[in-house]
């Protein structure tokens, strides 16, 4: 029994979600192989080989994989998957895009966003926006899983896996990468940050949102947002924390001007310590916050920033 993990990498570095998937794979048990698909991806392959717990790194280096197109990647993963008992990826936008396609090509079910490994065929995952946890047994021979990064520790370094080139499959002829507009930030990546400062509708404007930037810079935190703040244009889409955005579980989550709708709580309620700053003492966010401050955020946030 061996486990294949679709690795995600950017600028030669392996993403945190992939390291979390390695930890999940170690809990399942069996030899762990990483698949690094990319173009001129030597750096990423080397870094993958150094992850503790990884036995082998399969390297598919071809122009077809310069962008992670689902059609091309799914064909590659499905072709390799026949030799494995489990195929995993992080539950990131790439993992969520590619893995169900892999599962269907293999004619097997997928279990999405697992948060716990009970047995090699049994996993826990949240349903209903995290309001219930389902323990699910996979009955198919090949188990296709996506792994919630916030639920597993990132595997460290110290491994010395062998690199094995694998042949590329023909590139997709029906889809083409046109371009991207990525949000530029000096701050830590939201899903991997040790601290997150998030703003909601209470921030009032995108200018006011910069109050959170200053607090985040003091803390070395990432900045998140509720859906209301994103829809109102105060913060970019990829900052959104919640059922339909990103799932985070930092050491400290500071919710500012966020009421705490169930869809938002689904994305952050596994944070170790939650602080809520809101002027409405009845806001549901206080029901999950370890420390609540009923105050006007326009006074409390600058005061907090100044005092740190």
């Amino acid at each position, binding site marked *: 029994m061996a486990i294949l993990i679709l690795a995600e990498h950017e600028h030669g570095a392996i993403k945190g979600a992939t390291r979390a998937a390695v930890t999940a794979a170690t809990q399942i048990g069996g030899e762990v192989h990483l698949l690094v698909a990319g173009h001129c991806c030597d750096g990423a392959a080397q870094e993958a080989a150094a992850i503790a717990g990884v036995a082998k790194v399969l390297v598919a280096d071809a122009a077809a994989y310069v962008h992670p197109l*689902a*059609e091309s990647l799914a064909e590659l993963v499905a072709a390799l998957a026949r030799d494995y008992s489990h195929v995993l990826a992080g539950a990131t*936008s*790439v993992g*969520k*895009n*590619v893995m*169900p*396609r892999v*599962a*269907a090509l293999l*004619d*097997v*079910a*997928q279990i999405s966003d697992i948060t716990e490994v009970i047995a090699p065929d*049994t996993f826990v995952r949240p*349903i*209903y926006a*995290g*309001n*219930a*946890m*389902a*323990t*699910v*047994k*996979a*009955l198919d021979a090949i188990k296709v899983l996506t792994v919630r990064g916030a639920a597993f520790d990132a595997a460290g370094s110290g491994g010395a896996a062998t690199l094995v080139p694998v042949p590329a499959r023909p590139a997709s*002829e*029906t*889809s*083409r*990468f046109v*371009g991207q*507009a*990525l949000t530029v930030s000096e701050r830590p990546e939201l*899903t991997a940050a040790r*601290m997150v400062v998030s703003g909601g509708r209470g921030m009032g404007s995108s200018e006011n949102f910069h109050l959170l930037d200053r607090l985040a810079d003091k803390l070395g935190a990432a900045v998140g947002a509720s*859906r209301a703040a*994103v*829809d109102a244009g105060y913060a*970019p*889409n*990829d900052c959104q924390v919640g059922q*339909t955005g*990103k799932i985070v579980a930092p050491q*400290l989550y500071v919710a500012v001007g966020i009421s705490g709708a*169930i869809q938002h709580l689904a994305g952050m309620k596994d944070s170790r*310590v939650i602080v809520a700053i809101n002027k409405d*003492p009845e806001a549901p966010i*206080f029901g*999950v916050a*370890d*420390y*609540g*401050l*009923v105050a006007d955020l326009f006074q*409390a946030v600058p005061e*907090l920033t100044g005092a*740190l």
Partner: protein
Amino acid sequence: MKVLVAVKRVIDYNVKARVKSDGTGVDLAGVKMSMNPFDEIAVEEAVRLKEAGVVAEVVVASIGVPACQESLRTAMALGADRGILVETSHALEPLHVAKLLKALADKEQPQLVFLGKQAIDDDAGQTGQMLAALLRRPQATFASKVVVGGDGVEVTREVDGGLETLALKLPAVVTVDLRLNSPRYATLPNIMKAKKKPLETIAASTLGVDLAPRTQVLKVSEPRQRAGGVKVGDVATLIARLKSEAKVL
């Protein structure tokens, strides 16, 4: 051009799901049900393409118990032309739904299939991708902008770092994200008109899809509850407690 939109009837998004005490699932008895919010956005996008003259017909499909007709009538009140209910009382997984939708797509031959990016009950986020794989068609998931032109569709997607744009050849499968559009409200005259639109019912058993379970839910339990917190009086106390008690600063 014909568009097929798949819609699911789910617990209303404002309702907090309650786990049954015997651990067999979530209690849906007497709970308000609605169309999955992402699917509403998918219907709206298809109707807008029709209004723009790009699409000739919008067919909406749902799979499940007879009550799913409500979702189809809602979609038709929003502007879909006709509905198809694939009726079954089987517990369905995304792979089953994708296979049943493939059978419908083979029959209807739509150029575009729109689905929501995930259903807010199972939160699986799989069906659109699986359908695209089974049809061997290109896919664009998490769409926040859709532009149809010539023999292709250009889709802007919400990805972890920001936005990404792909060009797909038609026919294609697109799953939609929240920011694609704001769905309209169904007006009373349109609700009345929707009652007269054609709604075909097909028994799932006639589509030749194996609905044997691929996964087994052993139990459904309450998530870990957080211990109740405290309210602090001022910023200084907050910082002090984060340092001494929570030890996060």
